[in-house]
């Protein structure tokens, strides 16, 4: 019996991750080079429909590995299910896409089976009977050829974009699908999944803001940011800051204006307690109107300000907020 390559496609909440097509293309290429048999597997609580979708490709067989305990996704359950399946099937090579989910469970799976993973590969070579995988080192400056010396099953993951998903060959007829139920004992799953974390979209796109109230070191203390925020709210503008403020963690980095932050050009830019180092100025000098408040009459910010207010911002801002509110209410 020839050796087998098994592609584990990725699904999450019942949807196929399209990068899986790339892994199938990779599997087909390795199968063509080695003469090994290519099969695929889907892991989940209800993998049937995805298995059927995958079965359209040129594959010898598709396994739907199922257990109610596979939903929601946990690395414990996935590693346990695949370990059970792989231990009985004994494929030579197991391929997966190098996704966050795979990176989450595959080290556990390989360790549990006493095997190694060649991760994040960008290609393979089959030379005189030896299968070699290529992976990048030194941020892509070097390509290393790596091969397995351990016993099968071998695990390898492919980098996103290493193969073309649209080149996955269709099968002449649908591949047979076999459902494999796995038993995941109580106590195996120790992870308690929380809601899926999505990196917060940048809360503000300061480059689109029409009015920006920016604070600098002159604000003195974190709690004083509140008065700048009140002014920004009263004006209907956004709050921003110079670097020392974001450096101290008083405002998030995405609100930093200047050479190491964002470059903005609002209609109105209010600089409160910002001295105006060139590093800040390059990020806001395109503003239509600049109002600067600073105690130091020689602060460089005044050189580019349209309106200069020399004074203590704690004396100036509160009445300004009141005036803005009055004007808005009146208007």
């Amino acid at each position, binding site marked *: 019996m020839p050796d087998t390559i098994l592609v584990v496609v990725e699904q999450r909440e019942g949807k196929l991750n399209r990068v899986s097509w790339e892994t199938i293309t990779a599997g087909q290429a390795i199968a063509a080079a080695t003469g090994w048999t290519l099969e695929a597997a889907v892991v989940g609580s209800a993998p049937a429909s995805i298995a059927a979708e995958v079965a359209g490709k040129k594959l010898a067989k598709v396994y739907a590995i199922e257990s109610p305990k596979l939903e929601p996704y946990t690395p414990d359950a996935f590693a346990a299910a695949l370990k059970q399946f792989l231990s009985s099937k004994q494929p030579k090579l197991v391929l997966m896409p190098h996704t966050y989910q795979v990176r989450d469970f595959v080290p556990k799976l390989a360790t549990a089976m006493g095997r190694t993973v060649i991760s994040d590969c960008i290609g393979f070579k089959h030379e005189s009977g030896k299968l070699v995988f290529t992976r990048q*080192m030194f941020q892509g400056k070097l390509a290393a050829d790596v091969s397995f010396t351990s016993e099968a099953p071998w695990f390898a993951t492919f980098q996103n974009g290493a193969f073309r998903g649209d080149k996955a060959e269709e099968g002449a007829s649908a591949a047979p699908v076999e459902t494999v139920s796995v038993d995941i004992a109580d106590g195996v799953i120790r992870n308690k999944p929380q809601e899926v974390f999505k990196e917060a979209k940048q809360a503000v796109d300061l480059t689109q803001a029409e009015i920006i109230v920016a604070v600098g070191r002159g604000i003195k203390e974190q709690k004083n940011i509140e008065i700048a925020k009140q002014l920004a709210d009263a004006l209907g503008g956004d709050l921003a800051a110079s670097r020392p403020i974001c450096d101290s963690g008083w405002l998030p980095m995405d609100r930093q204006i200047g050479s190491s932050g964002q470059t903005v050009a609002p209609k109105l830019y209010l600089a409160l307690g910002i001295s105006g*180092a060139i590093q800040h100025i*390059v990020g806001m000098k395109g503003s239509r109107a600049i109002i600067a408040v600073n105690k130091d009459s020689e602060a460089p910010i005044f050189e580019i300000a349209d309106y200069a207010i020399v004074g203590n911002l704690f004396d100036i801002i509160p009445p300004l907020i009141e005036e803005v509110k009055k004007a808005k209410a009146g208007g």
Partner: protein
Amino acid sequence: MLFFRKPIEGVERPQMPADVVIVGGGPAGMACALRLAQLIDAHNAAHPDAQLSKENIYVLEKAREIGQHCLSGALLDPRAIAELLPDFEKEAPLDAKVIKEGVYFLTEKSKFKFPITPPFLRDHGNYVISLNKFVKWLGSKVEETGITIFTGFAGSELLFEGDRVTGVRTDDKGVDKEGHPKSNFEPGYDLKAKVVILAEGPRGSLTKQLIEKFDLAKDANPQTYGVGIKELWEVPSGRIAAGEVIYTMGWPLTTHEYGGAWIYGSKDNVVSLGFVTGLDYADPRLDPQRVLQQFKRHPWVAKLLEGGKMIRYGAKTMPYGGWWAIPPVAGNGWMILGDSAGFLNSARLKGIHLAIKSGMLAAETAFDALKKDDSSAAMLGQFQKKVESSWIKQELWKVRNLHQGFENGMFAGMFHTGLQMITGGRGLRNRYPAKAGYAHMQKLSNLPADGGPEAHLLGPAKGDGKLTFDKLTDLYHSGTKHEEDQPSHLVIHDTNVCNTKCVKEYGSPCQNFCPANVYEMVDDASQPNGKRISLNPSNCVHCKTCDIADPYQIITWVPPEGGGGPNYDGM
């Protein structure tokens, strides 16, 4: 809360075997790589049956691009490059041949020309270059040979087995401010090398690790340094000829400080000017960036620059302790080159040619080591012998006592220099002792409150925005950029010293000697003196002044995440 950079523990690091790893892609490292490739190519052509590979020879360079962190005056003495690449004149970026030189002594308002140019400052036959452009070119020659240069990768620590250096660990990438791995975390590589060559420039961080580990400096004089603060200007035509070289002594420094300025006319009306201040001054309030600003206010200099524009800024230290300050430069698995070793002629203020020559000699030794597959201390010790029998020693021997002569001020220095010139470098004795620069720094209580004769050198420069600049404006022109979310690569071993001791005793000189505003004392009512040290590591221009000049010696400079740093285009 400050968190300092150190290699992340408990991660599995990718290992990579290497024949030779050269840390630092400056003139020394590049010359070493190129010479090694030349030797291997010649060997392979002559011995088809015993081929040596260049594939496992690597250069680590922390800058994102080759040459980006290279800063010097610079004048090139072509002696070494002519040995390395006899045809260099046809292709190297040489901006101008030196046509005229002058040495001046400045007072606040006037200047006096030295009637004769001292022999060591005669520069006919030398070239005005941009070290940045020169190293870029040298790097391209290295890449043509097939040797890999890993730009954006720093050497973060040396790997040891017993008394042997066995490799270099590169920097961890994707570590956040508190030292946690980020989603893009990539652990540094362990490059296991037969031969590790340190060419990190002055006060190399791995060199420092090596010297400390094996106490290599025990028989050497303490290394002494200066910091060169440089600005590149574009001036109206006719002010200075391309190839005109000017050195000054005197004002704005007093007779107590060691240092001087250079002004080099380059092509296209570009002027390189800078001021080297010896990092052995007494007053902790002295600010080398301010010294340069004061220098530019001298009527003669101001006139030269009038109507011009400052286009680049940078700073770099230089080692000028001389021959007696050089530690052993080879041992079991390692060699040290260029400024990391201290190969710099302090009379001529030149080190590029010595860096290149030391790189070439180390390459010869590394080549023999590869051929014989032996990189023991005995084998690599050949490099030490080669240095001692080459013109590197000849040149440095003549000026071996120069800087030490100046430790007690300018007049004593000139006396000793004169004496040394007529005694082949000996002066009053074969070996003058030296004291580390930071040990000269005085506590505020011993100094006049108003600064006395040094008052004009103390505290931050204000800058008029045309001729003179405050530090932040200058810094902006260094093009410095770092990943902001990473631990501080300025490692302060005990911040209590900053907050409780130094602030009182020395008034926090870090704020003054750092030419890039990295160090700041911020108000903090919870501290006994109301001030707390705060760091802006992403301002750092990698000059190493802090590591050298801090009077308590509690700052260690380590490389930040590779790729960060200044952008010295044209410097």
